[in-house]
């Protein structure tokens, strides 16, 4: 009985994974396809990978993308978490106002956010990496708040207050007591901010400076004359390295847990 339940659970996981990864598998296949057309198999090749290494433009875009996405997500996490802590002790009304403001970037059509931020920069600042970073942080913070807020509400107030009673400062108590409790929410928020920023095209397009490209703006510009299969190769490499890192972390934590259990 238990086994059937376990088995059907496993089967379901596999099914969802299949749905999520089938399109990616196709991209991987395309990266080895010796034909620029997607639906025609022109034989196996590695030359998209070979070209990729020498394509300064793509490498530069990749560098910009990673730098932008990681720093935007990090800043968003810090801003968002601090905001949550602040909001948790705020008056109800003020908090409601702030939360509604937070929703705005999520619920505006991307083009509206993009154009609005562009107009702001047009009047007060100039476009460059900085403007892209600001836009991406703004996109990411709401996702951090939406993930951290519920965790913070559930974080046991008792332990925190006990820590204060025992003479810990608020900051110390926060780092020692609250932070570990809300940490999963922070991680989730980081992942969301990272994901949203990685995926964004419209906002990036309108806020980027001349001559700077991210992977997504580069891809969209290739649309007119067909996606360069080097991009499939890049995605494949990216995907494989992420999965490898993940696998390693998983193995590592598994070894750690089993060791701990042995002790």
């Amino acid at each position: 009985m238990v086994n059937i339940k376990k088995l059907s659970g496993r089967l379901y996981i596999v099914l969802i994974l299949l749905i999520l990864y089938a399109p990616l598998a196709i991209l991987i296949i395309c990266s080895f396809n010796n034909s620029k057309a997607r639906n025609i198999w022109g034989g196996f090749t590695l030359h998209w990978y070979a070209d990729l290494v020498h394509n300064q433009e793509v490498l530069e875009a990749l560098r910009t993308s990673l730098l932008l996405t990681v720093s935007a997500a990090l800043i968003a996490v810090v801003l968002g978490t601090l905001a949550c802590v602040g909001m948790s002790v705020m008056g109800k009304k003020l908090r409601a106002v702030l939360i509604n403001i937070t929703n705005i970037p999520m619920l505006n059509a991307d083009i509206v956010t993009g154009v609005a931020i562009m107009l702001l920069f047009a009047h007060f600042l100039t476009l460059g990496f900085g403007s892209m970073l600001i836009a991406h942080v703004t996109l990411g913070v709401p996702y951090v708040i939406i993930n951290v807020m519920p965790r913070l509400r559930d974080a046991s107030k008792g332990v925190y207050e006990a820590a204060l009673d025992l003479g810990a400062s608020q900051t110390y108590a926060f780092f020692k007591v609250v932070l570990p409790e809300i940490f999963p929410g922070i991680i989730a928020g980081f992942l969301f901010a990272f994901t949203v920023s990685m995926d964004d095209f419209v906002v990036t397009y309108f806020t980027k400076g001349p001559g700077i490209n991210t992977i997504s703006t580069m891809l969209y510009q290739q649309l007119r004359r067909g996606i360069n299969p080097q991009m499939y190769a890049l995605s494949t490499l990216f995907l494989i390295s992420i999965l490898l890192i993940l696998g390693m972390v998983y193995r590592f934590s598994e070894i750690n847990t089993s060791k701990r259990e042995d002790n």
Partner: protein
Amino acid sequence: MRQTSVAARQTGKVNMILPLIILAVCSGIIFLSGCHGRDGEADGRQDLIVFNYGDYIDRETIEMFEKETGIHVRYEEYLTPEDMYTKYSSGVIDYDLICSSDYMIQKMMLEGHLLPLDQSRMTSYGNIDPRYLELCRAFDPENKYAVPYLWGTLGILYNNKMVTDQVDSWEILWNPRYKNQIIMQNSMRDAFLVPLKWKGCSVNTRNKRELKEAQKLLMDQKPLVEAYLVDEIRDAMIAGDAAMAVTYSGDATEAMDANEDLSYVVPKEGSNVWFDCWAVPDCCRHKKEAEQFIDFMNRKETAEMNFDYIYYGTPNKAVYEDLDEETRSDETIFPPEEILSQCEVYEYLGTETDRYYTRLWKELKAK
């Protein structure tokens, strides 16, 4: 326990400092983004900001230009002329040189956003076939603002294995036999061109009755249409997802290279001939260098490199005369005179007709 409270007292200060640090970092970002220098020219280097369609130039030609002149090019790309216009009109970046399509060039010209070019400074201007300059007068009456870069037509790309009838008229796009086999252009002017030309109207008509009738024909056609696409047409046709598609000659050439069952035709009623041109917008800060760039791209060697890279029609006489017979007689890239004479260049129709067009287009899509 005592240790803890000492640590706590120390971190107590952090309590206030932490948000302050964050604030400082954030304002640092803003400050840096503001101070980036408008063109990054603090070091006295010349930066030419060029704005072109995506993947629409052989990058090597830019490097050659930089090496020869010492001018640094900041090359920027866009997806559609409308994207370009939105970004240009926001005024966030001072573009020195743009490359865009005929009607957009005309719109910017009529709005006073373009600077007249000094052709005397362009030594290779003579390479451009006067025939094309003549055609360009439809949107630039004195050839003062635009220098043609590449050109092409709009026509029907079809699959010989799936289409049994002869394809020579726009009418076939209303043949119920091809229900769910027809791909239309998902751009307003190109979609309206089809019924307008079929019924013998000008593509530049401002006559609301004619436009309304064209819309009605498109409405009738909608149940037969598989999809309205732009950039995906090429791949869909290569894959054999549809029997025919309204598309540009450039896309058609690339599709036909990949799938030999495909053919391209410009219907007998005529069509649109489009030009993508270089032009200098009014926000330009390096006009001389921009003209140098245009001139460089008109040279035979560079124009040839770009033609080989993009494979759209080149207005460059020197390049054309040097092509092999097979390429020259490729009617997709270089349609014969009798077809070309049937083709019109798009003109900018003014705000009012533009709005009317958009309205009709939205109605069609909402149906």
